[in-house]
C-alpha cells in the first residue's frame, strides 16, 4: 500500500471511511490514518465525521473526502 494507491481509491469514490480503507487495504486503521495525514495536510483530502453527532459506533468512522479539482489519473 502506497500513498498513491490510497489517493486513487479515494479519488474514484470521492468519500471513503477509514474503516473501508482499512478493510480494502488489509491494514490497521492507525497505519492508514498516519498515511492519510500526508494527504489531508496538502488540503487535497478533507477529513469529516460521518454524521453530525457521531456517537453511534465504536470504530474509526471518520470519512476522507476528496477535495481537489485534479482529474482522475488512470495510469
Amino acid at each position, binding site marked *: 500500500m502506497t*500513498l498513491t494507491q490510497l489517493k486513487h481509491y479515494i479519488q474514484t469514490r470521492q468519500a471513503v471511511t477509514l474503516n473501508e480503507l482499512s478493510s480494502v487495504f488489509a491494514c490497521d486503521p492507525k497505519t492508514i490514518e498516519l498515511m492519510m495525514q500526508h494527504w489531508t495536510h496538502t488540503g487535497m483530502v478533507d477529513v469529516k465525521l460521518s454524521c453530525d453527532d457521531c456517537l453511534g459506533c465504536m470504530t474509526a468512522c471518520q470519512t476522507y473526502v476528496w477535495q481537489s479539482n485534479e482529474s482522475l489519473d488512470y495510469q
Partner: protein
Amino acid sequence: MIPKKIALIGNPNSGKTTLFNRLTRMNYREGNYSGVTVESCFGSWSIDHNTSIDVVDLPGCYSLQPFGQDGQDMQETIRTIHEGNFDCIVNVVDALNLQRHLYLTHQLRELDVPMILLINRIDLAQLHNIDIDVDVLSNQLNCPVLPTVAIDPQVSKTLLDALVNYKHSPFSGYKLNDKWQSLQSKFMQEESLVSQYGFLLKLEAGHPLKSYYQSDSLPMSVGIAELRYQHIESLTAQAVVKRKSNTKSIHRRIDQIVLHDWLGLPIFFLVMYGLFALTISLAGNLQVGVDAITHALLVDGVRYTADWLLLPSWWGSFLGLGIGQGIATTLTFTPVLFCMFMGLGFLEHSGYMSRAALLMDQLMRKIGLPGRSLVSFIIGFGCNVPAIMAARHLDQPRERLMTILMTPFMSCGARLTIYAVMVTAFFPRGGHNIIFILYLIGIAAAILTGYLLQPSLALEQPLPLVMEMPDYQKPKIRLLMHYARRQTIHFVRRAAKYIIPLSALLTLLMHFNAHGQYLAGNQMEQSILASTAKVLTVFFYPIGIHDNNWPATVGLLSGLLAKEVVVGSMNALYGQVVVGAEPVWPQILHGIHDMLHGFLHFDLVPSLDIVSNQFHASAYGEMLNAFDSSASVFAFLVFALLYFPCMSTIVVIRKELGRGWASISLVWSTMLAYFLAIICYQVGTIAEHPLSSMMWLVLMLLVLAVLMKEFKKRVKKTWEKQQYDVNTA
C-alpha cells in the same frame, strides 16, 4: 567498541520503556497503550564494574517531520534526535505492525547515524503466523536487525553483542527516478554532502532547494513520503510472510462483543465492578492478618519493650503509638493496593484497557474531549501526578487544559487506602458497592468539569479516537506480580515518607498541652492538637463530623500533604485512646486464625463482618464510635475523594499550566467536594430531620449553581487573558 550513550526511539507503544527498564533495572511506568512515556527518561546500563552505557528512553513518535499536530512529548523526541548527541540509536519496532513502524526507521536511516533495529514482540508475531526474514531487512536497511522480546532477560545480552560488533554502513535503499536524481545531485553539490539521503529530510524541513521540485501530480512532501512508502512496500513484501491464522479472527470476535455499540459500556462497568468486588474480598481477608500482626509487633510490642526497659511513659507512646503505628498503618493497606494493582495490571496486559479507552471515547467526545485524554485518566487511577504529565501528548492547548483540570477527580490509589479502611470498618457488607460508587462519583465530577469547561474554551468536536489495538493476550502471572509489587512498593515508600513522621508528630502534639505537660487517657482532650482541631471541626458539622470526631478533621487537613496520610493520621489519633498494650502473641494468632477463616469461607461477594469485628479491637473501634452514622462516613469519603488534590498534584498543575489554573483547580475541587458532601449527608439523614435537611439541600443546590457559574466565568477570563498574553508575546 562499546558506545557511551544510546537512545531508544520508536513509535508509541513499541516497547521502549520495557526495554529501558530491562537494561537499566529502573522502574519507569510501562503501558499497553501509546502515550505513557511523555518525557525523556535517563538511566545507566551497567555492563561490568567499570563500564556502563547511558541510555535515553525518548517519548514515542511516528515521524521526524510531523504535521504540527503532535504533542509536546513527540516534539521533544524530534528535537533530541535532530540534535544527535548519541553514539548509537536503537530503533524499537513492533513485529506485529512492522509496516507502520518502518516509516520512522527509514527516516532514521536517512540521518545516516549508527543504528540498530530491534524488532520487539517477535514471539507474538510467531503466534500470529507472521514470519519475518531478518536477513532481508538487515540487507535492505544496511543495519543490524535483532528479533527480540523486550521483557526477555536475554535482550540485554543480545543488544550488547550487537553494539560491540557494530559496523556502520550507509543506507542506500530507494530507487530514485530521474526527477529525484537530478534534485539530489543539485542538493549534494550545493551542500557538499557525502550522505546520499539526508537531503530528503532537509527538503521536508523546508530547504530553499525545494523550489526546484517539479511534479505532475504529487506535492513535494507527499512525493518524499511516497518514496519511503514504496520502499517499505517492497521491503515488507520480501521480508514479511503472513500465513493464515485463527488468532486474528478470535480477537475480532471478542472485539465484536466487548466493543459492541450497546453492550460495550455495560460490559466495561461490569468488569470494573468485578474487579472491586474481588479486590475487596481478597484484600479484606489479608488485611485482617496484616493488621493484627503489625499492630501486635509494632505498636504493642514496642510499648511492652519500652515499659520493660523502664523508659518514661511518653517514650513508649512516641515509639509505639507514633512511629510503630505509622509503620503499621502503612503496611496495613498494602494488601488492598497489591490486589488492586494486580487487577488493573491484568486488564492492561490482557489488552482490555485499550478497548476500555475506545469505549469511553464516545462519551468523551460528547463533552468535546479527544479519546487521547483517556490515557491520562487511566494513569490517574494509579496516581494523578504522572497522569497530568501524560496530557503532554495532546497537541491542542485547550484539550490539554481540560484534561489536566479533569484528571484530579480520578480516584487515585492513595484515596483507595482511605476507602479500604473506612469501608471495611463501616460497611462490612457490600463495601465494594460503596467503593464502586465513589469511583463513579469521581468520574462524574470530572465529566461535570469538562462539561462546564467546554463552552468557556470553545472546543471543537474532536475526531473519533483511532487507537492502536494491542492483541488480546494471556497475562503472565510473573509479570503481573512484578507490576503489582513495583507499584505497591512505590506507593508504600511514598506513603511511609509522610505517614511515619506525621504520625510521630501528631502523637507528640496529642500527648502534650500548651504548657508542655505530658497527658494520658482522657486528659488528651486538652492537648494542643485536640484544642485546635475542635475549633476547625465546626466547618465539617454540615457533613456530620462533630466535636468528638476531631481526629477526622486532622486526617483531612493532613491529606492536603498527600492523600495517603489521611488514614495514617486518623489511625494514629484514634489509636491513642486505646489505653495499655495488649499481649502480643495472642493478637498475632488471632489475626492469623481470622485470616485463614476468611479464606476458607471465601465468597466473591464480600462480607467483611470478621474484618469489622477484628477492627473493633483496635483504633478502628474508636473510629466506629466517632462517626455518628453511615451517612456521615459516606459524606466524609465523598469529601476525601474530591477535595484539594494532594500537594504534588497541585505543584504539577502549576508547572504544566501556571499558578492561575492551579488555583482554579484547587478552589473548584474543594468547593465542589464540600457542597456535594453536605448534599450526601443531608440526603442520608433526611428521615431524622426532614425540615432542616430539605433546607440544607435547597441551599446547597443554589450554592452549587452559583459555584458552577463562577467557575465558568473564571475559566473564561483566565483563558482569554492567557490567549492575550500569548498573542502579545
